[in-house]
C-alpha cells in the first residue's frame, strides 16, 4: 500500500525527539505523517529532528507539510530541524532552504553550548528534586553565594600576604643574627692575645656544658 510505504522510527536522543524516516514519501502519506508529528508536538515535544536521509523518493507536497509543522512548533517555542544530504531531497527543499534548519548529519547539528547544558541540567535537577525557585531569588542567592566566595578569597589572600611579610622579617632577623655572630667571633679572635697577656679579662659568663 502506498499510504504505508514509509518506515518510521521515533527515538529520544540528547534531549530531542528524532524521527527517522526511510522509504518513498508519497503524497498519500502526507496526512498521516502530519498527524503523527502534530501529535508529538501536542504531547509537549519542542525539539524535533527529522532524519530524511533514507527517503528514496519525495512528493512535491512534502516540503510544504514540513513548513506548516515548522510554523506550528515555532509558534509553541520549539524548533524543527531536518537532516539530509541526498540529492533528491536537496532539490525538493531548495525553494525553502532559508526557512528550514537543514543539516548534513547528526554531527553537524549544534549542541547549544555550555549555557544550554546548564539550563538542561537545571531543568533535570528541578524535575528530580522537585525544588523550583523564582529568577530574582535565584539571582539574590547567587550574588550572596558569590559574595561569600569572594570574601573567603579575600581573607585567604590577606592571610597569605601576612604570612609572606612574617617570613621576610624572620629571614632578615636571621641574616642579622648570622652577621652579628660572625662579627662577634672576629672581635673575640682579636681579644684573645690580649687576654693571654693578661692585659684584659673576659668578664662574659661562660656557657655550661
Amino acid at each position, binding site marked *: *500500500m502506498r499510504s*504505508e510505504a514509509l*518506515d*518510521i*522510527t*521515533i*527515538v*529520544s*536522543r540528547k*534531549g530531542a*525527539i528524532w524521527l527517522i524516516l526511510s522509504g518513498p514519501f508519497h503524497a498519500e502519506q502526507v496526512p498521516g505523517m502530519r*498527524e*503523527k508529528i502534530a*501529535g*508529538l508536538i501536542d*504531547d*509537549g*515535544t519542542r525539539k524535533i529532528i527529522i532524519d530524511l536521509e533514507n527517503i528514496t523518493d519525495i512528493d512535491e507536497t512534502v516540503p510544504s507539510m514540513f513548513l506548516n509543522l515548522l510554523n506550528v512548533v515555532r509558534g509553541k517555542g520549539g524548533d524543527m530541524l531536518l537532516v539530509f544530504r541526498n540529492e533528491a531531497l536537496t532539490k525538493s527543499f531548495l525553494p525553502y532552504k532559508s526557512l528550514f534548519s537543514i543539516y548534513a548529519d547528526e554531527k553537524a547539528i549544534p549542541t547549544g553550548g555550555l549555557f544550554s547544558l546548564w539550563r538542561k541540567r537545571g531543568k533535570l535537577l528541578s524535575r528530580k528534586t522537585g525544588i523550583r525557585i523564582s529568577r530574582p531569588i535565584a539571582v539574590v542567592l547567587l550574588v550572596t553565594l558569590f559574595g561569600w566566595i569572594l570574601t573567603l578569597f579575600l581573607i585567604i589572600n590577606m592571610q597569605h600576604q601576612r604570612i609572606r611579610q612574617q617570613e621576610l622579617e624572620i629571614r632578615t632577623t636571621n641574616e642579622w643574627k648570622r652577621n652579628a655572630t660572625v662579627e662577634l667571633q672576629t672581635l673575640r679572635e682579636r681579644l684573645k692575645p690580649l687576654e693571654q697577656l693578661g692585659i684584659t679579662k673576659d668578664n662574659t659568663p661562660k656557657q655550661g656544658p
Partner: protein
Amino acid sequence: MKRHAIALCIHPIKNSLVSKGAFREAINAFAQTVLDIGSNHQNIRLNLIMPGFFLETIDPMLLLPLREMHKRGAIEWLTTGYTEPFLSFSPQWLIRENLKYGVNTFSEYVGTRPSGFVPSFSNWEPSYIDTLREAHLPYAVLSRSLLPKQHRNRLGYWINEFAGSSIVIFPAYTIFSPKSPAALESWIDQQFDQDPSPSPSVKLLCIKYFFQLLSSDTAAIADNLRETVKVLDKFLLTYQPVRFTEFLASNPPLGLQYVPQSIVFHRDDSETEPSFLNSLHSFDQVGIIQRKMMDVADNIASRKESKHFEPYKKTLFFVQDVNRYIPSVESGFIKVQDRMWCYEKLIDIEHELRERDKIAGGQIRISDFLRNGGKNIIMTNKNVAVYIDHKNGGHVFELDVRRRRCNICAGYNPARHSLPMIIEPGISHTAFIDHIVSNETTAEDFKAKRFLEIGDFFSGAFEYKIKKTESNIKAVLNRQGSIVQSEKTCPLSMEKVFGLEKEHPVLPFVYQLSNHSLTPYSFRLAIEMTFSLPGIADNTAFLMHNKDKIAGLGGQLICLPQILQWHIADPVCGVRIHCVLQKPMDLWCFPAVDLKEEGVPQDGVTIVLSSPVSLLGSDMWSCMGKLHFKRMALLGKKTDEI
C-alpha cells in the same frame, strides 16, 4: 577401457545445539577416523565437506596431518560456508559474508581455500551463482533429487546456467551413516549399469556420505565409514576414487541442466519440496525468527563503520544456520531450545546496537517487520520489546524480555496457517487476542476451542496512534467494530493502549469498550495470551496466585475466578511475569497445544483473562493492567553453544 570414477564426499553433520566440549570431542573423533582411513588406504581420495567453524574446533595436532593429507592429494576440501546458511532465508549480503568468512577460515586453519560448495539440505538458489564465483568456489555438490527424474541416473557433472552466469554442479547420491548399504558393492555396479550414457565416456558416481557427529553410537558410525572406504578400496581396479577438481580437469560435462530454487527437506530424501517456503511459513515461529534475523541484518548492513560490527555478523552466521529452521528429530524451529537460542542471539545483538546508538528511553518503530505489505508497531526500551500487528487484531506477536534475552511469545504451534502468512489471526499463538464471546462461555469451551466469536475484534484491523514523550511511549489502537446481540449486528468500539515507561520492564495495557448505540450489550471479553515456557516440559514452570503455587501447567485446566493479580514463572528461562489488574477478572490457564496431538512438544501455556461486560446505551467499560517482567534465578545449565 577407461576406469569409471567414484567421488566419495564425507559430510560430518551436527544438527543440534550442544555444549562446546561435547562438540569438540565429536569432531576430533571424526578427524581421527579420517586420518585412520588416510593411513590405511593410501590410494583412496576423499572429498571432505565442512563448515568453517568445525575447523576452529578441531585439535591443531589433528589438523596438521589433515594438511599433509591434502598436500599429497588424498583430500579435497569443500565447504558449506562458515556455518550451514539457509540460502533461501537469508539476505544475500549475509550469505556472501558467510562464504567469505568460511573461505578465510579454511585458509587460516588448513592452509588452502575450499575447492567447492555444498549447500546444506541441497538448498539451491540459482541466483547465488555469482556469489559462489566471487568466493572462488567453481562447483557445487547437490542432491541428485534436484534433477528431473529422467536425468537422475546419469553419472557425471552438469553445467547450471542462470541469468547469464554458470557453475558446475555434481549430482550426488546420498548415504546416511547408520544405514549404509550392506551390499554396497552390488549397489555401486547397479548405479553404473543404470546410467544410459554411451559407455566410452568416463562416468562419475558421486556418493555423499553423511557422518552423524553427535550420536549415541559414534564408534559404530566410524566403523561404518571405514567399511565403506574398504569397499571402495576393493574396487580400486574397476573404479577410480577421485577428487572433484581432478575429474573436472579431464572430463567434459554431461550438458546443461537448469535447477530451480529447491531444497531436500530430509538430508537423505529422494524427493524435493518445490514450494518449501510456503510450507515453512505456514507455521508460526519460523517466519518471525527469519524476519527478526533480516531486520537485525539490515540494521547492521546500514552501519558505515563495519569493522565494529564484525562480531555481530559472526553471530548472525550461526542464526542463519539451516538446522535452526528445518524441522527434524533433533533440531529445527519446532524445538523450543532452537527457537529460544535464535531469539537470544538476535535480542543480544539488538541490545548491543541500542547501547551503541545511545538511545534513551523508549523507541517506537513503524515498519514492515513481517514483510507482508503492512506495518507493524515495535515499541522497545532497554528491558522490553513489544511487536504489535495492528492490521490483524492488534495483537502482540513478539514480546522480548531483554534482560533475559528471550521472547516469551515463542511457543510452538502445530496448527498450520491456511495461507503462507507469518501470522494468521485465530490460529497463531500470540498475545492480547481479544475475543468477544457470549456470557455462557466457559474455560472448557475455550480450551476445546468450542466457543462462538460474536465480535470482530480478534482479527480485525485497528487504527493506530503513537505517542512519545521524552521518556514514555504509547501505542493507541482503535477499532470501530461490531458484535452480534440478539441476532443483530451492533456497533462497538474498542480502544486498547500499550505503553512502555522509561526503561522499566513493565508493559501497562488499557482496554476501553464503548457502546455508541442505545441498545444495552452483555457479553464476555476474553483476552488470550500464549506464553512459551520451556520449564513446562520438566514441570518447573508454575503459576502463582496469592501464596498458592500451582505446578503442572502442561496438563491441566486451571480456573481462578475474579482475581486481581497473579504471576507465572519459569526458572528454565529465568523469567517471572507478574500481572496486576485494576478490576478483578477470571483467569483460565491451559496448555497451548492440545495434549491429544502426539509427539508435539509442550512448551507453552495459554492464559485467558476474561470478564463479563454489561454496557448500557452510550456506556463505557474499561480495564487497566500491567505485566511486570522480573528476573528469577536460572535453573540448570544452558546448552547454547553451536
